[in-house]
């Protein structure tokens, strides 16, 4: 019972990632594509959690943490690039 529910939710996460990939391909503007890639990162983290429940293993917890950190930093750098043009500045104008 619980196993089939987890499998169905994994399939739905795959479908969600596919739909988001269509948004990346046809996305009219650059911010659309950036937000779609962030959504793919969040979906991957959730799918990893479900996989670790399904296999009843702890080996994927590190993957979840590292993927979360990478998604966080990539979102910040993309939004800073969109807003300012420069990602890492030499001297801030305070």
């Amino acid at each position, binding site marked *: 019972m619980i196993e089939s529910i987890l499998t169905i939710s994994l399939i739905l996460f795959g479908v969600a990632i596919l739909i988001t990939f269509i948004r990346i391909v046809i996305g009219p503007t650059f911010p659309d594509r950036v937000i779609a890639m962030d959504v793919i990162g969040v979906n991957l983290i959730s799918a990893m959690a479900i996989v670790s429940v399904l296999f009843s293993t702890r*080996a994927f917890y590190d993957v979840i943490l*590292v993927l979360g*950190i990478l998604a*966080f*930093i990539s979102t*910040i750098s993309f939004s800073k690039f969109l807003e300012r043009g420069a*990602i*890492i500045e030499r*001297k*801030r104008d305070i």
Partner: protein
Amino acid sequence: MKINEVILQSVSKIVVFIILTLALYLFFAGHNAPGGGFIGGLVLASSFVLMLLAFDIETVKKGIPVDFKLVAASGALIVLLSGLGATILGEPFLSQSFAYFDLPFYGEVELTTVTIFETGVALAVVGVVVTIILSISEDV
């Protein structure tokens, strides 16, 4: 237009320490579980990248006055010396050993010579990655 960055800077001041804790955990989880010097060094470098994103190069250089090219070179030196230490005792190059010790407050721990090797790998990875990012971001 002046841009308000209070939220980014306040959040990253806390999140940097979470990332440093994860990097230390990944570093010490190595040689028995997924983890090790390379991944620990990469996560450590990502915390430096977050600091560089939230603040600027001058502030981070003032806070951490370390030349990262020197860090990479000393990491490679530590790797070489940990390999050469085995040849003094008559063992082949890079051979390792481990033993169990009773430390106060921790109980029985496994101390290995691989940890010295992993320290060198982590230092080399941090130095190389931060140097690459700093030199890419120049003159934009």
